[in-house]
C-alpha cells in the first residue's frame, strides 16, 4: 500500500519530529510511504475564520497533491476532520471538485486511527517509563468520533501508566484563531485544562493534535510545570524496542 504523508503545516514548521516519528513507526510496520511536496496547509485557519474562498484554494491544492494515493495519513485529528467533514461541503454545487473532495475524504486518516485500522491486532514493542495522561482534541473526539484508537495504542506501551484526564471532554481553548482573538478566554480554558493535567501527576501530556499541544505546552512552560508534551507518534517512536 502506498501511503501519502500529510504532515500538516504546523508539524512541518514547528514539530518536524512528529512527522519523522510517524515515518519511522510506519516504516517499521512495513508501510511504503511518500511525502508529496505539493502539500501546504489544509485550509483550516481560513475556513474557521470565515474565509471560504481562501480555504478552497488550499483545499484544491491538497486534493490535487494527494490524488493517486491509496491512503493518506496525518498526525492531526483536526486536519483529518477538516478534510473528511468540511472538504466535500466546501465544494457542494461544484460537481467535479465535490467528487474529488469526497474521494480524498474517504482516503484520509488520522495517525492513531490508521494504526489501529491496519495493525490493530498486532502487539507493538514499545516501552516508556512514567505516567501519562491523554488529551482528546475536540475535532478528533467529536467530529471523527475517534476516542479509542489513541488510548488503545498508548495502553500497549510497557511501563507507561495511563491516567484518565478529568473533564477530558472539555476543550483546551486552542480553537485556531480563537487562541489569539479571544486570548483571555482561551488562556483561562487552558488553565483549567492544565490544572486537570497536573492533578493526575502525569509526567507526559500526550495528544493527537500539535495545535492543542502547542497551546497547552506553551501555557505549561510559561507556568513552569514539569510536564512534557508529546504526540502519540513520538511516544511510539521513542519507546520502540528494536
Amino acid at each position, binding site marked *: 500500500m502506498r501511503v501519502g504523508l500529510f504532515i500538516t503545516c504546523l508539524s512541518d514548521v514547528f514539530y518536524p519530529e512528529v512527522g519523522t516519528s510517524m515515518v519511522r513507526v510506519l516504516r517499521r510496520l512495513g508501510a511504503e510511504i511518500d511525502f508529496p511536496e505539493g502539500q501546504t496547509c489544509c485550509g483550516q485557519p481560513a475556513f474557521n475564520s470565515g474565509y471560504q474562498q481562501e480555504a478552497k484554494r488550499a483545499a484544491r491544492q491538497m486534493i490535487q497533491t494527494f490524488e493517486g494515493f491509496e491512503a493518506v495519513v496525518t498526525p492531526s485529528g483536526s486536519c483529518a476532520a477538516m478534510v473528511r467533514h468540511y472538504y466535500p461541503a466546501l465544494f457542494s454545487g461544484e460537481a467535479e471538485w465535490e467528487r474529488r473532495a469526497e474521494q480524498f475524504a474517504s482516503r484520509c486518516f488520522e495517525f492513531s486511527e490508521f494504526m489501529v485500522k491496519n495493525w490493530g491486532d498486532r502487539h507493538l514493542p514499545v516501552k516508556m517509563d512514567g505516567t501519562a495522561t491523554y488529551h482528546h482534541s475536540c475535532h478528533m473526539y467529536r467530529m471523527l468520533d475517534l476516542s479509542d484508537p489513541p488510548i488503545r495504542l498508548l495502553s500497549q506501551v510497557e511501563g507507561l501508566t495511563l491516567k484518565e484526564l478529568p473533564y477530558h471532554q472539555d*476543550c483546551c481553548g486552542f480553537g485556531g484563531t480563537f487562541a489569539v482573538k479571544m486570548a483571555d478566554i482561551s488562556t483561562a480554558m487552558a488553565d483549567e485544562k492544565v490544572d486537570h493535567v497536573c492533578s493526575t501527576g502525569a509526567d507526559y501530556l500526550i495528544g493527537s493534535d500539535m495545535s492543542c499541544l502547542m497551546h497547552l505546552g506553551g501555557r505549561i512552560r*510559561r507556568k513552569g510545570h514539569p510536564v512534557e508534551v508529546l504526540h502519540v507518534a513520538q511516544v511510539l517512536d521513542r519507546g520502540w524496542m528494536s
Partner: protein
Amino acid sequence: MSLGASTLPFTKRVEQAMEDDFLRQAVRRTQDKLRGGKERAASDMGDWEAWRKRAEAIRQHTIQHLDTYLDQFTTQVEEAGGVVHFADTSQDVIDVVTDIIRAKKARSVVKSKSMVSEEVDLNRVLEDAGVEVVESDLGEYIVQLAKEAPSHIIIPAIHKNRDQVAELFSKEAGEKLPPETHILTRFARERMRQKFLEADIGITGCNFGVAESGALVLVSNEGNARLTTTLPRTHIAVMGMERLAPRWTDLDILLTMLTRSATGQAITSYVTAITGPRRQEDGDGPEELHVVIVDNGRSSMLGTDYQSVLNCIRCGACINVCPVYRQIGGHAYGGVYPGPIGAVLTPLLEGLDGWQELPYASSLCGACTEACPVRIPLHDHLLDLRRDEVAQKETSWAERLAFKGFGLVAERPGLFEAGARSGGWLARQVAEDGYLQTGWGPLKPWTDTRDFPAPARQSFRQWWREEGGKADE
C-alpha cells in the same frame, strides 16, 4: 435594537466577567451540576441518540410546516375562547400588550419567566407606562430587583450569591434580612403571594403550543406559572412563532428532552397546560386569554441555511456544556440569549452589525452541538455566520489581507516553504531556548500568556529531502 442588554463593547464585557471571581466560580459549579444531571438523565433513557433523532425529526417537521400548524393552533385557541395576536416586530408585541393593559385599565402585572418578553424588553416598557411589573420566578425576581438581565435561560440568577440576594431583598423589604436561604425564599414567597392576589394581568411565556388542541404548555419548578395563569383576570401568553408541537404525542417527546436536557429532571415540578380562558364550569382561571405569537426576525430564517436554529427548544443544554460560557458567564454575550445558542441566535435576530464578535466567541469545540437535544449543528452555524461576516465585509482590512496572503501561499508550496523559512530564521534570532516569550503583532496576544515555539531549524520537508525519502529507494 432591543436585545442589547449592555451598552459596553464585547471585549469590555468579557474583561468585566473575567475579573469577577465569584461569577466564574458560580458558573462553573452550576455548569458541573447541570451537565452531570443531564448525563445521568440521558443515560437513563437508553439510546439517547435515538431520542435526539426523534426530537429533531419532530422539530424539523413542525418548522417545515409551520404555516399549517400556526393556522391549526390559532383556530384551536380561538375555538377555546382565546384571542390570538400576531406580532411581526418587537414594537408590535409591545403595542399588543399595552393595548390590552389599557383596555383592562390594569395597574399591576405578574409575570412568569418569558425569554421572548426579555427579547422585546417588555418590563421596561410597562414600567415606563406606569404599570407595576413583578417577576414571579425567583431567579427572575432577583435579576429584576438588581435591574439586570438574566444570565442564563434556565437559571437567570446563576451569577448572584446569597449575600447579594439578601442585600437586594433587604432593600425591598425595608429591613435587614439574613443571607439564609429559607428566610430569603420565605420573603420572596410572601411578597409574591400578595402580588399574585393584587395583579390585574398575568403574563407568561410559552414552552410549547400544541397545535391539535390549542393548549399552551408551561414548565416550571416553582409553580409560579400556575399562579400567574390562574389568579389574575386576564392572561397574556407571549410565544415565539416556532414553539409549536403538532400533537400531544409529539409534545410528550419534546418535554422529555427539554426537562432532561435542561436540569436533568425527568419532569419539572409543574407542567401546566392551559386551553382557553375559564369556562363556566371551571372553578378558577382567567376571564380572558390572549396569545401573542411573535416573529421578531424568526421567519427570516425559514428556508435559509439557518432554519434548524428554529428547532431550538430553549433547554440551555448547549450553555451548560460551553467552555466559553464557563469562563465568562451570560452577560458577556450582551444579548438576551447567552452561550452558543445566543452566539448564533442574536446575530440572526438582530443582524451582524453590532454583534460581529459573537460568532467568534467559540473555540468550535462542538460540545454544544453534541449536547443539543434536537441536534442543531450550532458550531457549524457559527462557521456559517463567520462566512457571512466575511461576505458582508464586517472583518478588518488587515485580516482580509492576511487571509488573501494565506490563499496565495496555500497554492504555492515553494512560497509556503520560503515564507516559513524566513519567518523561522527571524523568530530564532529573538527566541530564547527555542521559545518566544514576547511576540509582536498578531503573535502578541499569544505570547502574553503562553510561550511560543520558534520554528525548527530543519523543517520536515527539508528532512524528507535530505534523509527521510531515502529509505524507500
